């Protein structure tokens, strides 16, 4: 009975979406007609926004569990961090000119039109008419300019150095002039990568100041900030005047709950509706619970790296040792134990969600093999025929169980180590320093990096010599990378990029494990009932289900 109504609703919804999409397209063609810049333009791949007509009043309380403590700093786009966590709060309170949406990686939001000069020295935006902040004040190009000029977060120096001046044409039109060609501008200005595109209300920020804004921010996003307890909980309320649609849930409560078991308990007792990061020991229970649903939410690929491998005294200096490590890992069984078989054994360490990544499913790169006999055989040819003791196995926080499983696999071929269960920030600090973060050359790192910006971005962080977080530094790769950076030919770039990926995997500099499902568990109060919740996970490259205004929950009783 319930199932049939569920399908009916789903059909109705799809029809509605199709209608809206068509309407949006028509509007876009109309809006995009008046050009701002003179001269030749780059053809931009920015999708049109879908404006959805009112669907009645927001209802119900939607309670989300973040898997670590909350930082009020996340509410301030001017101090945007590099990690993707912060976008959750951007998507709630703020809005960007362009941002990733289900329609595409770049989608018009506050802007309805954008242009980029072919010489990459000018970029222009036209804002939607009638935009407002939560306090009713209009959102104008002055706020866009002010935000750009006062931005201090990720990539701030690049934006500042490249800028010549900002020209406010009128309340809705703004042009950025750059000193030199700024090729990455549209990628970086996009809400996924930095905070500079998320518009902060100048008048309010100047009035309340930095602390005041973090304590009680306002923006132009779908949810108004209500209150917070630093680190513990943030409460948001639907802003019915949001331009794209009326938010579906009346109230959103985000709690910071580190403990997996506590999040699960919260779901089971009905104190939570959505919990992130529910793999490992809690997943079987999520799956077994008839009241709970879950989405696989594939993000990036687990892999092992060997910081300091290139020092001659490192046991991992020998390619065959790294190969033995790879051969020793029973990935099939690991996937079964850690993710109940949901994850996919994968042959590349870069996420297949990245447009330019080699596929690791056996087509571009082979599926990694599990063969203990062969591992022992390979190891027998090295300096360590019976294995050896390395220092620390450092897993990405908090996947310590998974780390211990891999550690146990390695013990089977005689490679023994201890697990270092760092806290998240400590882990990031060590990774951020690359090889320098792990002195001693005897460490294995179990990492995962859901980074936007394509395979190139990930390689640029970990696998080139110049990066602060560099783990791999090989002349062979360096040569290809230099060519890649110099090249203006997209095909050649793609070829070089893939050649580097191939070397990294074939030389076992990076040992891929499996494509990770960052499973989210969802409670019974989230609509639609039964299946259909996957639609909340349409935004590309997003570990979290943005945007929030679409989430529907049952009305509070």
């Amino acid at each position, binding site marked *: 009975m319930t199932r049939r109504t569920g399908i009916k609703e789903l059909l109705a919804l799809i029809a509605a979406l199709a209608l809206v999409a068509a309407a949006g397209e028509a509007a876009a063609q109309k809006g995009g007609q008046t050009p701002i810049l003179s001269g030749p333009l780059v053809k931009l791949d920015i999708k049109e926004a879908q404006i959805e007509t009112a669907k009645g009043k927001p209802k119900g309380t939607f309670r989300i569990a973040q898997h670590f403590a909350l930082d009020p700093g996340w509410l301030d786009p001017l101090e945007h961090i590099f990690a993707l966590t912060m976008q959750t709060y951007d998507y709630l309170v703020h809005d960007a000119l362009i941002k990733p949406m289900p329609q595409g990686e770049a989608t018009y939001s506050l802007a309805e039109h954008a242009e980029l000069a072919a010489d990459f020295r000018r970029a222009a935006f036209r804002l939607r008419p009638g935009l407002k902040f939560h306090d009713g004040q209009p959102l104008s190009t002055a706020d866009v300019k002010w935000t750009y000029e006062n931005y201090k977060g990720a990539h701030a120096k690049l934006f500042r150095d490249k800028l010549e001046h900002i020209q406010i044409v009128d309340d809705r039109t703004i042009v950025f002039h750059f000193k030199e060609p700024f090729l990455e501008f549209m990628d970086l200005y996009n809400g996924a990568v930095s905070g500079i595109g998320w518009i902060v209300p100048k008048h309010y920020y100047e009035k309340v100041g930095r602390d005041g804004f973090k304590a009680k921010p306002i923006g132009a996003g779908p949810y108004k900030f209500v209150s917070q307890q630093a680190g513990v909980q943030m409460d948001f309320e639907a802003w019915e005047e949001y331009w794209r649609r009326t938010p579906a849930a009346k109230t959103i409560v985000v709690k910071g709950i580190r403990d997996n*078991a506590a999040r699960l308990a919260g779901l089971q007792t009905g104190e939570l509706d959505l919990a992130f990061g529910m793999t490992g020991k809690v997943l079987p229970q999520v799956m077994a619970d008839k009241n709970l649903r879950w989405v696989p939410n594939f993000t990036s690929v687990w892999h092992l790296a060997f910081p300091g491998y290139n020092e001659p005294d490192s046991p991992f200096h020998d390619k065959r040792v790294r190969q033995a490590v790879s051969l020793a890992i029973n990935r099939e069984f690991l996937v079964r134990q850690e993710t109940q078989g949901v994850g996919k054994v994968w042959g590349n360490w870069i996420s297949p969600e990245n447009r330019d990544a080699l596929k690791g499913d056996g087509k571009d790169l082979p599926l990694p093999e599990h063969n203990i006999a062969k591992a022992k055989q390979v190891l027998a040819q090295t300096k360590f025929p019976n294995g050896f003791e390395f220092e620390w196995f450092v897993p990405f926080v908090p996947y310590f*169980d998974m780390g211990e499983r891999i*550690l146990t696999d390695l013990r089977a071929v005689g490679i023994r180590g201890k697990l270092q*269960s760092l806290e998240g920030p400590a882990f990031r600090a060590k990774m951020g320093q690359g090889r320098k973060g792990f002195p001693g050359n005897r460490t294995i790192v179990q990492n995962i990096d859901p980074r936007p910006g394509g395979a190139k971005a990930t390689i640029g962080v970990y696998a080139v010599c110049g990066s602060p977080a560099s783990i791999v530094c090989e002349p062979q790769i360096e040569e290809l990378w230099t060519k890649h950076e110099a090249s203006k030919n997209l095909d050649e770039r793609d070829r070089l990029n893939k050649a580097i990926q191939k070397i990294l995997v074939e030389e076992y500099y990076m040992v891929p494990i499996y494509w990770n499902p960052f499973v989210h568990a969802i409670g019974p109060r989230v609509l639609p009932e039964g299946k259909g919740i996957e639609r909340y996970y349409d935004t590309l490259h997003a570990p979290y289900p943005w945007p929030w205004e679409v989430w529907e929950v049952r009305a509070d009783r």
Partner: protein
Amino acid sequence: MATILGRATEIGGVSRAARRSYSWVREIPLVPLLLVTVLVLAAVLAPVLAPHSHLDPVKPTPGQCQAKYGMADCPYVDNMPPFWFSQGTFATPLGTDYLGRDLLSRLMYGARISLVVALTGTLFAGAIGTLLGVLAGYMGKWWDQIIMRVTDAWLTLPSLVFAILLSSVRGPGVWNIVLILALVFWSRYSRAVRGEVLALREREFVRLAEINGVGKLKIIRRHLIPNVMNTVMVLFSLQVGVAVIIEASLSFLGVGVPPPEPSWGLMMAQERESLMQGKWWLAVFPGICITMLVLSANMLGDWLRVRLDPQLRNR
């Protein structure tokens, strides 16, 4: 001289007193002693007694693999229940953990960690604290002022907080925990020992030694330290229990003994989720072990306190 010699009654009293002092053997509390003995034996003889490795999974039979995963072969079978459940076997009497490792063997090796860490940590703390307390009490003046002000400040730091702080400086590891325990607990000793020494300093045997020109170090070594040992012993026995709990708490919070070593606190932390799935034994057994060890340490400590402090005989 003849008038002096031959006080037979007095000399006879010697052996009576000596005999009396052995009667304490009968007062030893048996239950905690038994518990401690069992735990110590388990710890010492773990390599001999433990049925399986504490770090590697138990090799499963094809039948077990088939039953659990529907596979002909598997590296391990996780979460086997204890023997009294229908799926349990006597090969792994208390079941296996999430990595198919034998719980009983891990508990036995865990006893090693708990005992070694708690005992050595408390020992070091006792050594540092006693020394500083003696110095403060005996040397007086600015020694006393400095040591006691630092002790006071140290005592205001909550021990677990301090331990967490230190462990984030030193990183995880068994010997780091020992160091942490030593650095956290010394202040309890120095406080008590100083008080004791202040009283001892006025005792005549100490003044006698001073008058005789015995060096300060020697007075500390021969007169003061032996005479504060009662207090130190009592404190020691009471602190061991706390040290076990601190080690377990640190490991529970993930800043203690690093995996895969089986610290009881760590085992509880790792199996918190299993607890919620009804697999209570994985977290409850280590919890019981901790409780047993601390309980018996406290009971022995109490008994020792009563033994060594006559004022408390009837408490």
